[in-house]
């Protein structure tokens, strides 16, 4: 839209009206000499703008629209107003899956953040070897499906090496993925295994921005590593930590793959996370309208969390300035 209307002549008067700094003005003058880049820009932006409009903007609007319809994919969508949302509010399985998802996110993000922070600090204070950082990242190269299948095997109640070790230590075998109470924590930890390396590297990037002489000065003052962590590392890492936290929480809420290959929502809906329930509604029962309504609910939850986290942790500010 914007591009089609940007034919060079019509922009000239506008140009004169705005702009203040001299540097900008010379830049603008130069652009005017060249006749502007409007046409060239249109060509350069076209593929990305097409993709953006067709596969991101339009689906987002359409997803919201579908949430107000009854739609089974075969016959045209029929407007039903708030029916899907009313149904959602009264659907105990929806609330249950939301609860399961939140439980998953709390365990997943809690453990992952602490672990990533610990590993990043260990890497920073012990060795900055790129090889070790590479090793820490390797599970991230696996798909969630691979990670799920591998841990399904390792944690198998009878034959899994995990349970073999537990047995050898004299404990009873644990049905990690077959037990209602164990399943969600287990899935959360499997995903910690796959993602913790990436989070570690992001935090490590933040740690590298903390000047070394701060640690040197603290050491001269006789501060212990423990004290330095609480007094230097953590306060200065806070902005990075906040951004990483927002990112990982959003990712965590979308958990689907691992559930799909390990427990398939079971046992007894114990791992029926929201995204799995949405998928079942859409592709199992062809209720695309209802599935869209739940997606909108998830979108709202994520937006609210992002906003809250941003406010609470003052993500935009840095103490390093």
């Amino acid at each position, binding site marked *: 839209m*914007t*591009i089609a209307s940007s034919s060079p002549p019509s922009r000239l008067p*506008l140009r004169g009206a705005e702009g203040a700094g001299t540097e900008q003005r010379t830049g*603008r003058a130069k652009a005017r000499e060249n006749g*502007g*880049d409007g046409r060239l*820009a249109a060509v*350069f*932006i076209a*593929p*990305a703008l097409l*993709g*953006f409009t*067709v*596969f*991101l903007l*339009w*689906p987002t609007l*359409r997803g919201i629209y*579908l949430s107000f319809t009854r739609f089974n994919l075969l016959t045209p969508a029929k407007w039903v107003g708030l029916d899907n949302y009313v149904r959602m509010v009264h659907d105990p399985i929806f609330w249950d899956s939301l609860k399961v998802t939140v439980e998953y996110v709390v365990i997943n993000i809690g453990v992952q953040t602490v672990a990533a922070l*610990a590993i990043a600090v*260990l890497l920073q204070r*012990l060795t900055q070897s*790129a090889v*070790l950082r*590479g*090793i*820490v*990242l*390797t*599970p991230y*190269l*696996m*798909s969630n499906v*691979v990670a799920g*299948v*591998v841990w399904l*095997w*390792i944690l198998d109640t009878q*034959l899994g*090496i995990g349970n073999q070790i537990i047995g050898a230590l004299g404990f009873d075998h644990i049905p990690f993925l077959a037990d209602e109470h164990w399943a969600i924590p287990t899935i959360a930890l499997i995903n910690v295994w796959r993602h913790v390396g990436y989070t570690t*590297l992001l935090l490590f*990037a*933040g740690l*590298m921005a903390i000047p070394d002489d701060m640690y*040197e000065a603290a050491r001269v003052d006789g501060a212990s*590593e423990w004290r330095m962590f609480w007094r230097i590392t953590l306060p200065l890492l806070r902005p990075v930590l906040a951004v990483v936290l927002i990112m990982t929480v959003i990712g965590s*809420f*979308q958990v689907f*793959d691992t559930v*799909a290959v390990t427990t398939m929502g079971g046992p007894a809906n114990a791992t029926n996370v929201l995204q799995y329930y*949405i*998928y079942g509604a*859409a592709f199992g029962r062809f209720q*695309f309208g209802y*599935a*869209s309504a739940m*997606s909108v609910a*998830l*979108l709202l939850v994520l937006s609210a969390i992002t906003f809250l986290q941003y406010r609470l942790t003052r993500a935009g500010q840095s103490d390093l300035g």
Partner: protein
Amino acid sequence: MAAVTTTTTVRPTRRRPSIGRIVAWAVMAAILLITLLPFYWILRTALSTNTALAAHPGDPLPVGLTAGGFERALGLQSAKEAIAQGGAGGGLKFWRYLLNSVIVSTLITVCQIFFSAMAAFAFARLRWRGRDKVFGLFLAGLMVPAIFTLLPNFVLIKQLHLVDTLLGIALPTMFMTPFAVFFLRQFFMNVPREVEEAALLDGAGKVRIFFRVLLPMASTPVLTLGVLTYITSWNDYFWPLMVSYSDSSRVLTVALAIFRAQTPQTGYDWSGLMAATLIAALPMLVLFGFFARRIVSTISFTGIK
């Protein structure tokens, strides 16, 4: 890289190893062990027979050494042979899925990075009306979780009659991701104007500047972004699961999940499953092996997300 060398020389306090340091190293070693052991266990299981696995579940070495698992995963065994060795006997052709995964990931990566770089150039270096507004829109796109667009995108792909095709899997992410555009724009913004102006004086057009000057200068970020995009699309499961129904468009992640779901009556075909897992995982390990140093340092010094 430079930071690594300076910090190691600056740190003079390598006195006698304190107890704290020893404990810290022990924790580090344990973390590395947990990180890496599952990979060994995949290999160990893939090279074992199912019957021997049941008899010696805790043996650290492959038991009843065999390539049967791999043969089953690649569809080289007859159904009878497969069932005799504890497989499902269902025909899974991991060669085919491997090829599909390569096609889809390559298509997505090459097109997405190229188109995103073009857009990033237009945002960073060209002047046009509405530029900041369009860029703001792209930034807002970063806020929409990918998962939200999957259902409507599926409806769209179905309307385009592209369900169960490789193009259908690739299409939604082939043109751009807001992140790729944002990341590359950031890089182009940081290239000094003088570089561009020198080329302009030499009579080069803007198109030429993009292809001959800026794009080559961006080879490191482009490569890092490319490898990460490749890994992401290779590992994607949810979207291909929606779009593909048959062998013709089945990618490795989906095939692996199907393999896992085909549980034979006697129990899991762990040997075949781990062989298939290895086939799905190995290409990314090799790819990472080539670019590890560059990727690790890009992520850990720029915080690419």
